[in-house]
């Protein structure tokens, strides 16, 4: 919603605050200022209006907020009309209509709008038309309630379609209306939708007679219609929110007065007012103490003042005491609440589920074993018999939830290979999803890749992850020096086989074993022994590698290789 600063004074004649200040203050009270510009000697504030504040999609609503914030008097122009006695031939036959006001005007003289109206609409980036249409747009922006002019003199019915019908909008595009769409029909044909006009009833330059209407509908109906037709207009943006039907007479009278003044026309019918279920008067008392919610002292007099100033009957978003509390804190100022006092750090019983703790332990173990964590998309194009399908995912290439992690990790591996990234082992802990006896099940799973894929479901019992890849608990107490010995060996086996064999052969005094040199079938091993004395280590070393004497560590002498005995 854009507002021109100078135009706010229509409703707030005593407004003294600068446009910048207003933009800042409106942001604090919930209407986020997302742009500020100066154009044609005017200051324009662009605001993001909260979806429950349809009333603020017009100047009047924002003026109401400022009147409370700055303690100003609000001036709402009141006009009265002089309708004739001849009734209008129109009817409402839909439960989605909350209120309609309409009147017929004759002897219209259509022309260009006045320069002020033209400038106003231009700054709001609304296309110009003739003086009647421009005025309906002007009033919509002023009061936040859309209105419409028909180049028809009788026979309008508000109804929900029972069959699908085609409809031509004002700009000439043909659309197909599904059943239940709310339309305004003329001679059994839809001539207008709730939020967009039709071509066959648009105001033309030669139009002499017109029916002007202003209405408020069930917002859900308008939203559904607008979504189904994939059409958004300035009117639909307002009508799909809760608007105040009691504001219609004020805005409507203002509109008719302006039309009569600008087009020299005359009222030619009685005033039609359909309003079957009047908004009941609200009675909400402040049963919650605002200070107890804000955490700071807000004086009772201030609370009372705000409650008196807010016209809760005009505010559909206020339903209960907590809503009043919000209003009070909002106007008192969120910026007055200190931000340096976090919640009391007292310890409450730990309700962290065991599975989350398991996952955390698992991750740090895998990390220490050199595994990198990856995350992949939980949706896939691979279908299995127990796959769960999404019904409306617009990313059509990913229609199923994954039933295993290995597929995802394989994809990741392929990507790494494509990018020629030197491989390191990696893992993912994520959810897998499948159907089981008509139930949709999701489970945490661990998938690893270290040359081959491994996958297991993580359960919330601590027992479960003991099954996972071998040594997890490798912290040791060291009681004597670590002994490092080398061995030269000739073997036809692969490095991996040799290492695996000697790891096993040496057993629990092995700290680490590495191949430090390798030429064709000649290997040099370096072995670290721990928690055993020098003599034992040497004995075991000689025995394991079938050596006759200890080969000196760091020896530069020619190596004597012995044949492996595996």
């Amino acid at each position, binding site marked *: 919603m854009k507002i021109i600063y100078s135009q706010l004074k229509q409703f707030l004649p005593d407004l003294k605050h600068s446009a910048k200040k207003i933009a800042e203050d409106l942001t604090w009270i919930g209407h986020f200022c997302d742009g500020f510009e100066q154009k044609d000697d005017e200051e324009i504030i662009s605001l993001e209006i*909260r*979806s429950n504040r349809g009333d603020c999609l017009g100047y009047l609503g924002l003026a109401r907020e400022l009147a409370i914030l700055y303690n100003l008097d609000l001036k709402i122009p009141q006009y009265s009309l002089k309708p004739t006695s001849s009734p209008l031939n129109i009817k409402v036959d839909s439960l989605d209509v909350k209120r309609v006001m309409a009147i017929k005007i004759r002897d219209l003289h259509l022309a260009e709008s006045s320069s002020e109206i033209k400038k106003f609409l231009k700054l709001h980036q609304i296309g110009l038309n003739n003086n009647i249409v421009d005025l309906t747009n002007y009033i919509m922006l002023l009061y936040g309630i859309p209105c419409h002019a028909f180049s028809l003199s009788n026979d309008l019915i508000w109804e929900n379609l029972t069959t699908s019908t085609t409809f031509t909008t004002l700009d000439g595009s043909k659309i197909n209306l599904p059943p239940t769409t709310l339309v305004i029909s003329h001679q059994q044909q839809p001539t207008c939708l709730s939020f967009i006009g039709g071509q066959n009833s648009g105001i033309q330059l030669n139009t002499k007679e017109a029916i002007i209407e202003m209405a408020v509908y069930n*917002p859900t109906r308008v939203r559904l219609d607008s979504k189904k037709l994939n059409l958004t207009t300035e009117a639909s943006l307002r009508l799909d929110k809760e608007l105040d039907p009691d504001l219609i007479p004020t805005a409507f009278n203002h509109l008719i007065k302006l039309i009569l003044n600008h087009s020299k026309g005359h009222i030619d019918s009685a005033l039609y007012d359909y309003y079957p279920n009047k908004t009941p008067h609200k009675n909400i008392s402040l049963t919650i103490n605002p200070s107890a919610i804000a*955490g700071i002292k807000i004086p009772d007099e201030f609370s009372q003042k705000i409650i008196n100033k807010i016209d809760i009957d005009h505010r559909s978003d206020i339903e209960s005491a907590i809503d009043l509390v919000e209003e009070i*804190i909002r106007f008192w100022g969120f910026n007055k609440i200190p931000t340096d006092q976090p919640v009391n750090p007292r310890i409450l019983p730990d309700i962290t589920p065991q599975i989350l703790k398991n996952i955390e332990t698992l991750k740090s173990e895998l*990390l220490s074993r050199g595994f990198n964590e990856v995350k992949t998309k*939980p949706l896939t194009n691979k279908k299995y018999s127990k796959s769960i399908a*999404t*019904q409306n995912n617009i990313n059509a290439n990913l229609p199923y939830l994954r039933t295993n992690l290995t597929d995802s990790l394989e994809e990741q591996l392929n990507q790494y290979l494509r990018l020629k990234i030197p491989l390191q082992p990696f893992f993912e802990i994520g959810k897998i999803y499948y159907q089981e006896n008509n139930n949709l099940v999701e489970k945490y799973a661990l998938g690893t890749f270290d040359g081959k894929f491994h996958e297991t479901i993580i359960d919330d019992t601590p027992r479960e992850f003991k099954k996972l890849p071998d040594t997890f608990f490798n912290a040791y107490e060291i009681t004597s020096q670590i002994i490092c010995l080398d061995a030269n060996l000739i073997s036809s086996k692969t490095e991996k086989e040799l290492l695996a064999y000697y790891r096993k052969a040496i057993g629990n005094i092995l700290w680490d074993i590495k191949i430090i040199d390798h030429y064709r079938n000649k290997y040099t091993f370096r072995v670290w022994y721990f928690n055993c004395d020098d003599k034992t280590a040497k004995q075991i070393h000689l025995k394991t590698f079938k050596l006759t004497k200890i080969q000196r560590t760091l020896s530069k002498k020619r190596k004597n290789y012995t044949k492996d005995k595996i």
Partner: protein
Amino acid sequence: MEDYLKKIAECTEADELEKLKIKLLGRRGVLNRLLADVKNLPVEKRIELNKLKKEIETAFANKKIETPASRRTSLLKFSSAKLGHLHPLTQTENQLNNLFRSLGFSIYDGPEIETDEFCFERLNVPQNHPARDLQDTIYLQEPEILLRTQTSSIEARLLYEQKPPFKVVAPGCCYRNEKVNKSNHFILHQYQGVVVDKNITLKDLFGTLNLLFKTLYGPEVIIRFRSKYYPEVEPGVGPDMQCFACHGVGCPLCKGAGWIEMGGAGIIHPKVLKMANIDPCQWTGFAFGLGLDRWTMAKFNLKDIRTLLGGNLAYKPNEL
């Protein structure tokens, strides 16, 4: 004399060097013997001798031989422990989890396959709220079973499953039915926080969130809290962070606003507590939800949001 200098240069063993030093510079060393009758020598000879002595001294000083101690450290070559890396999102989550554990919070979890009841109804999202639109929600069995669109569904589960008081944070991913491109993903990662206790106020919420942002972004960060609307909270607030690129002036990064929206928060709506059979007269609480993706992208300098899930994310091996 030149021979001695050569010997020093050639010497490789520390013990030999020490012997040589004693032989040359010792009390009864070669040099001292020469200097003994220095007074009988002509001036030129004296200068020459002095020069020689200095030369030998510097030769010894410059000569470095691995002593047993230095050899020991070089033997201690680090067997480079290959440590793995956590995913950037996990790192961010851990950072926050650690903060909240220190404030006495538990970590919580909830299902991603959710029901309409827990994703919307119990959070006071009215039937006609735009969030319910087909366009935004991925359904598995319309209209009842869906993929959660927000981590607030964990809040609804928590309120239903646990008895207050509790303090909980919950990281999790959620799904929106949106097209994927460089800056938008249909899978979002959020961080939810819920506290229900006696006398919980906006002051507690503001203080906690402020601490959170300072932990993530550093102590100089400026946060403001403004009024905002979310159905599950009342009053609702939105924390904004002052744009770190322009410091509130307005720039392309913050789209001219000077501030960046960080998420949503507020005091839990009494209706939401009532639906979970928690007496709103006795208990109050706050809740907040933040997006983690953008922050993580900024921290790790990722330009494409798709990198976060699979694909082009890799870890450079550590240098140790």
